[in-house]
């Protein structure tokens, strides 16, 4: 089975976000970058599928970004992926640009299944997997928390409001992983050492012009801290009164 996994290099979720001088992007000073948390579930699932299908199955990792994205590719290699491809660009592409960059590269392989995280925790678009599927002509399921292969059909369960949808998919397919799909493994020391010997090939991204334009970025106005009504149960009556009479929410 030919397996691809797409990863994205993003600011750590513990980062405080500050706006840079251009008022259109974040100030990257002092921000730690990590593999997108949802992509770890994608990598883990890709490795599990490689192990299950045996033979000469391989997991190839793709990322669209600049030189620094190699750190995130290396993380996936250290977890156990076989090789990495950086689709290199200095531009900050919108989701469609990333999906185009990926699809132009992925189409020259013969992938059965492509794993992605359900969204990257920077722009939170949740759009690249579906766009990639559309550009490649693959099926796709997003927000996937369970995945099974039966014959040539894949069954995915995706989280929606109030429950799970069971989705039947034809191969080849794109799977966008949600937290809960699996427990991502830690990269072992051996994995980290072996990853150093694995190749990361650089390919230039196809030229692309963003379809949307950010005109301004700012941080939300900080909420004024409210009142501490007390330290024990005697404050409950006042709380209930405020919720009824001031906030009018109950």
């Amino acid at each position, binding site marked *: 089975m030919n397996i691809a996994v797409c990863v994205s290099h993003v600011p750590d979720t*513990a980062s405080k976000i500050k706006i840079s001088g251009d008022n259109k992007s974040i100030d990257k000073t002092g921000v730690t970058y990590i593999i997108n*948390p949802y992509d770890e579930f994608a990598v883990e699932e890709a490795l599990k599928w490689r192990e299950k299908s045996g033979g000469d199955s391989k997991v190839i990792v793709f990322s669209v970004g600049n030189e620094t994205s190699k750190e995130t590719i290396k993380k996936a290699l250290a977890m156990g992926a076989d090789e990495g491809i950086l689709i290199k660009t200095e531009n900050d592409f919108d989701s469609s640009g990333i999906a185009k960059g990926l699809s132009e590269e992925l189409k020259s392989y013969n992938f059965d299944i492509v794993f992605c995280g359900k969204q990257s925790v920077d722009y939170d*678009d949740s759009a690249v997997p579906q766009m990639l599927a559309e550009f490649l002509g693959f099926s796709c399921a*997003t927000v996937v928390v369970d995945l099974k292969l039966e014959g040539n059909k894949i069954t995915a369960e995706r989280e929606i409001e109030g429950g799970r*949808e069971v989705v039947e998919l034809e191969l080849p397919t794109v799977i966008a992983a949600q937290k809960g799909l699996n427990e991502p493994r830690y990269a072992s020391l051996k994995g980290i050492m072996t990853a150093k010997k694995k190749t990361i090939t650089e390919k230039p991204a196809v030229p692309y012009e963003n*379809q949307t334009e950010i005109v301004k970025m700012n941080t939300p106005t900080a*909420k004024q*801290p409210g009142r501490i009504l007390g330290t024990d149960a005697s404050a409950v009556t006042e709380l209930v009164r405020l919720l009824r009479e001031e906030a009018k929410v109950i």
Partner: protein
Amino acid sequence: MPDKIIAVLEQREGKLKRFAFEVVTTAVKLANELNLEKEAVVVGSNVENINEIGNYGINKVVHLKSDKLANYSSTGYAEVVANYVNEAEADFLLLSNTALGKDLAPYLAAKINAGLIVDAVKLDTSTGELVVTRPVYAGKALIDVKFKTLKKVLTIRPNIFKAVSNNGSTPEVTVKEVNPSNLKSRVTSFKKSEGKLDVAEADIIVSGGRGMKGPENFHLIEKLAEALGAAVGASRAVVDAGWRPHREQVGQTGKTVSPTLYIACGISGAIQHLAGMSSAKYIVAINKDKDAPIFNIADYGIAGDVFEIIPILTEEIKKIKSQ
């Protein structure tokens, strides 16, 4: 001829979802402000309450009908909607940023080569051009963003743009039988989670964190939620510890929510959690540690013991509700 906006409406099990009417109201507003023609599209088999769309101000409704699309199919929906959009020469599609809208909008954008902006919380047309405000980094920042393309696909965050009924006329519904050829992804069934409200849809959320000390104490959260008709939420710490299912997680790697009331119990307020819930209209925090960051954004706080306070609060709420 003016451009055309199409409200792409969500139905499940043959009924339009309540968020569909938010989309209709918003489409009407945009159509007025940007001088666009407007219509609504519904995909599915039988849809019982299709006439309600007229109450919200759109009189032209197209029902793309196929028994094959009784259940959602991303590939099938994308195919029939894109075909219709080309036929109707529409340039602007509006959807709700629900599970279905989030899944479908990017397909549609890729298919019709439109720009895509998701999760709008504010729409400004005062310059004659649409500027969309949306949260990024799970709400730690906001961006103002605009389309550079003629064709546009936009999703709006549920619960932000209220549906306004003006008791309009019965709409003119055109049923178009369609026959989708691409059902490579199709929903075969739905597994309902045990009778509980979903945090993504709830108007009130009661959330528990590590301060609840263990999964066995979450019945206190559940009882308070029940008294309020609220959904149960959880912090990342308790989800990662396996106390609560992931679908309840609020925050950056869980769900971003904007309820009217959010009650945080035993939650200290890590940056990832605050990012996911600080846009709630009213926030109540109950936490032993008076220096916990959650109090910085709470409207009302009680710096005390959750085990003492929650049961009494639950009783008080029950009393009010029974009056």
